[in-house]
């Protein structure tokens, strides 16, 4: 048999690796800055671009899609070539993928800080960028599948199963969740509304964690861990079971983000039970990792790469046990909307994703530069400082979440709420300070890595094209009967299609009834579409990222009803494109904010929150008082809403601005009574109109129900 000689493309791996480091540092800095704003609101600099509501989406997008994304691509491009014994299918496509992705990241950074957002968590990017993501993702898929098809290895290793499932599922999630109707170049409305939008969004949001932060990184673990430890994979059988179980079950678990909300009960229960069933498949990955190290634990003591991996896999195990437990209703009742969730996410983010990325970088750079690591000691110090950082980050936030939740729920024996919302916030400040110290330590560790890797690169010489040789794949059909899964492993397209079928089931079962069966979202006749001014105000609410800190979903709990008013009903949100239920209550819930305070309170509060509620940690929004409202966009927005089925009259788009001015003048008049002089066509007026509308639709019937 002839042996073919070929070259692995290391240059593309290097490019993705560099991007990983750069965007990792940028993303962590954004996170640190946002964290500091929680106890020093003035550090927002009173600039629109750097307030928490815009910085936080930047942080999450940078970490998920830029840092972990690029790290996964680097690892995939390195391992895929070696596991297929083939160079990437096309260098051109590789570089199109690389530059396309980096341009998307740059565009994301600019538009997010600019306030261009769809208002859906982890899917904030506007429609032109969504289209670009789809295009680049397809190119990545073609390049990956092309490489797999021209491979010199008969069977596909488990890492590649994970890569393929990642690709096909992310494509499905991104396309379904991003269906939106463009209003202008950088503005669109989600196709779905209210409960349905929430279901689609968290089906996406949950599985973005699953298929962008988990499955590709598990694939990387399956390659880099046995390579670094020089040990065989613990169990092939476990790989098969946990792979299929994981991708099948994960998709169903999305509704656990919506427990006790207006989502139908049956969907919530599906979210809970599938989360519980997810424990074992997730732990299968952890076990296959940790047991692979059996007989190599002496190496873990020496090798920083393995150290990072062990902590990463342990954090993965912790987070994937905690997640299902958080999906139990009685735990969610305590943890949801609090910093507990932030802590949970960061055990996964800092521990699993961050440490895996560091481990892979420490492994790749010496290999590709044909040298040894510049300083093992520095890497070990990075490991320890990073681990301490994670602990300092997570522990105070667990405490904060638990404490705040108990304070929210606390009643005096006389039946009164024991604490004002503000008291529960002020109590958290020390914990917020500690978490930012933890974050700063973690970032320091990352900077130590940057120095260490730069020095390593300097002392070695880069191998752009690494020579390898292997025999070509012979098409001969094997005469003896193969194990059934081995058959699938040599048919990449079958594997891809099977993965798609398996991941499509959960979503279909949850979506179909919610969209088609009317009883799931009972209509309320008193709920009317937003007025043009309120609609404009709502867009400002979305633009400023208010949903990042304020929920609009009162759960059916005694304390929430006492604090905020009648609990939220599914029928109240039928005109909300997109829904704005939020996922965190750094500030109080706003679902029934309308009519709670006078217009002038909101005016002053937006200018300086602390003047109206002392101790508040909300940023100032002085620009809302100076910006003129863009009324030219009103007709297009109304038209888009009509297309989405919102029952405005057919020709309302043309008359909308007249109504808008009329309502604006009323608010201007109210403000004048309280000695505030402003023009009616300011952004603040629109925002006040929206805030004063919130929750009012059913205030009448709710009162009668109480009597």
């Amino acid at each position, binding site marked *: 048999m002839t042996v073919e000689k070929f070259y692995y493309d290391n240059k593309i791996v290097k490019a993705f690796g560099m991007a990983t480091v750069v965007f990792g540092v940028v993303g962590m800095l954004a996170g640190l800055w946002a964290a500091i704003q929680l106890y020093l609101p003035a550090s927002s600099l009173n600039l629109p671009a750097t307030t928490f509501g815009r910085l936080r989406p930047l942080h999450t997008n940078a970490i998920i899609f830029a840092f972990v994304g690029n790290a996964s691509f680097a690892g995939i491009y390195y*391992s895929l070539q*070696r*596991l297929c*014994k083939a160079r990437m299918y096309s260098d051109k496509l590789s570089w199109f993928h690389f530059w396309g992705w980096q341009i998307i990241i740059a565009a994301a950074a600019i538009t997010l800080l600019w306030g261009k957002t769809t208002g859906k968590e982890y899917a904030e990017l506007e429609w032109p960028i969504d289209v670009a993501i789809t295009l680049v993702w397809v190119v990545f898929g073609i390049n990956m599948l092309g490489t797999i098809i021209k491979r010199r*290895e008969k*069977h596909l*290793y488990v890492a590649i199963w994970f890569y393929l499932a990642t690709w096909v599922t992310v494509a499905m999630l991104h396309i379904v969740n991003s269906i939106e109707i463009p209003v202008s170049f950088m503005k669109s409305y989600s196709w779905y509304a209210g409960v349905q939008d929430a279901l689609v969004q968290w089906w996406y949001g949950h599985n973005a964690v699953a298929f962008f932060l988990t499955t590709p990184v598990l694939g990387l673990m399956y*390659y880099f861990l*046995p*390579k670094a430890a020089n040990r*065989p*994979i*613990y*169990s*092939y*059988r*476990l*790989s098969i*079971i946990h792979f299929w*179980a994981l991708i099948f079950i994960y998709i169903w678990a999305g509704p656990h983000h919506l427990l*006790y909300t207006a989502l139908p*009960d*049956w969907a*919530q*229960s599906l979210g*809970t*039970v*599938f989360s*519980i*069933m997810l*424990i*074992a*498949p997730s*732990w*299968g990955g952890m*076990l296959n990792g940790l*047991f692979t190290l*059996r*007989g190599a634990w002496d190496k873990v003591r020496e090798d920083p790469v393995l150290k990072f991996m062990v902590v990463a896999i342990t954090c993965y195990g912790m987070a994937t046990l905690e997640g299902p437990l958080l999906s*139990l*209703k*009685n735990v969610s*009742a305590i943890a949801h909307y609090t910093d507990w969730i932030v802590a949970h996410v960061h055990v996964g983010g800092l521990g699993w994703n961050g440490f895996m990325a560091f481990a892979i970088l420490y492994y790749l750079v010496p290999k590709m530069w044909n040298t040894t690591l510049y300083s093992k000691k520095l890497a070990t110090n990075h490991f320890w400082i990073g681990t301490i950082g994670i602990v300092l980050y997570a522990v105070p936030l667990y405490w904060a979440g638990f404490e705040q939740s108990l304070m929210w729920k606390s*009643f005096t*024996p*006389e*039946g009164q709420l024991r604490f004002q919302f503000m008291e529960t916030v002020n109590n958290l400040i020390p914990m917020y300070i500690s978490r930012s110290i933890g974050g700063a330590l973690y970032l320091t560790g990352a900077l130590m890595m940057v120095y260490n890797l730069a020095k390593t690169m300097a002392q070695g010489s880069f191998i752009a094209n690494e020579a390898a040789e292997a025999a070509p794949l012979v098409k001969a059909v094997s005469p003896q009967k193969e194990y059934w899964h081995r058959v699938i492993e040599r048919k990449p397209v079958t594997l891809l299609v099977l993965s798609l079928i398996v991941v499509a089931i959960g979503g279909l079962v949850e979506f179909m009834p919610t969209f088609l069966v009317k009883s799931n979202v009972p209509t309320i006749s008193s709920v009317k579409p937003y007025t043009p001014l309120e609609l404009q105000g709502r867009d400002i609410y979305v633009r400023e990222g208010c949903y990042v800190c304020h929920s609009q979903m009162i*759960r*059916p*709990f*005694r304390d929430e*009803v006492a604090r905020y008013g009648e*609990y939220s009903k599914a029928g109240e949100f039928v005109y909300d494109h997109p829904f704005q239920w939020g996922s965190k209550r750094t500030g109080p819930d706003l679902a029934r904010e309308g009519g709670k305070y006078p217009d002038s309170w909101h005016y002053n509060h937006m200018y300086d929150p602390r003047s109206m509620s002392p101790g508040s940690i909300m940023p100032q929004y002085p620009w809302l008082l100076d910006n003129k409202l863009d009324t030219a966009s009103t007709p297009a927005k109304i038209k888009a809403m009509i297309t989405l089925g919102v029952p405005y009259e057919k020709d309302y788009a043309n008359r909308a601005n007249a109504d808008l001015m009329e309502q604006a003048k009323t608010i201007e008049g109210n403000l004048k009574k309280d000695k505030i002089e402003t023009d009616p066509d300011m952004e603040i007026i629109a925002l006040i109109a929206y805030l004063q509308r919130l929750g009012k639709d059913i205030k009448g019937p709710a009162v009668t129900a109480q009597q």
Partner: protein
Amino acid sequence: MLNKKSIALLFLSLALLNSFCTMAQDAAQVPQTQASPGLNPALMLLIGIAVIFLLCIGILGYVLINVSALNSGKDKNDQCQVSSIPKTPLLLITLLSSSLLANAQTGPSAETAIVAQKATSIIGLTPTAFYLLVFTLFIEVVVILVLMWNIWNLLKKANPVTDIVPIEEKKEARRLTLNWWEKFNSLKPMAQEENLDTGHEYDGIRELNNRLPPWWLYGFYISILFAVIYLWRFHVSHSAPLAKEEYELSVSNAEEKTKAYLASKGEAIDENTVTLLTGKTDIDAGKVIFEKSCAACHMADGGGMVGPNLTDNFWLHGGDIKSVFKTIKYGINAMPPWQTSYSNKEIAQVASFVASLHGTKPKTPKAPEGVEVIGASQNQAADSATKTK
């Protein structure tokens, strides 16, 4: 002779019995009227004991097998194969806890759902569930005794040989044997690794084909069982409250609780609104508390010892009913606060009793302390004191 299979079987049946108890409890529940079984302290205690007994049985069974193996002279390698035992207790515990967890899902509502139990219940459990649990505990105790008796008999016959092994041999032995952790995970000795090799090789990465760790596999099954029970309870049998029902339950319970609290507080008395109580029942109630908690320092007749004399006209912290109430409730200097021990109503009763002591002749009166008070309230107190007599 007991062998490992029979012990495992015994175990399984006991566990099933255990979980049936919880199930029976389940079935007997009507969520609207009774507290969730998962949070009934008596049930938790009994199940806790049952689980601990099960663990004991597991450990004793394991010891018994080893002792019997030692006795019959089986070699060490053979013992390595005994892996069914440790996983069984685990299976049971998880089985139990999964059903408990499913029950506990009634959550916050149950916390507040403390509604009077039916007269037919025993320590808050239905009779069936109670007797089933007691029966299980009884069986478990019998099994433990039998196991202990067996071990004792075997140990009497046993004659273990202790030998000293050099370090290199120990290392080699380590490759051949398994510790408890490895057995727990159904791992094979390192020396047998070639047998597990699948022959797969990708870029130098080989794949073994270890058995799935039993606890993992059974954990997976149990999580599926949990899912079925959960969906059944919430959406088929409707024996667990959905969000809206849970909310209504929690609000009505809280209302009841608040009402009860306000009633127990004696219509919301505090130091600003307290008035002198003159009814005989109130004074007598005050006397009982006084003798229990105050007499140690003030003497039963109020003559004073560590604390001041309460019968004279001299008061350190005011002698009117409001001041006395306040002193008792919050304490001052050496006087401890009593607000966490007694309700405001009870404190008012004690204060009124103290007022009734004014002018009486104690056996060993302590010298006067503080300022002399002869005010309207004092007279009033003295008047009422004479009246009650």
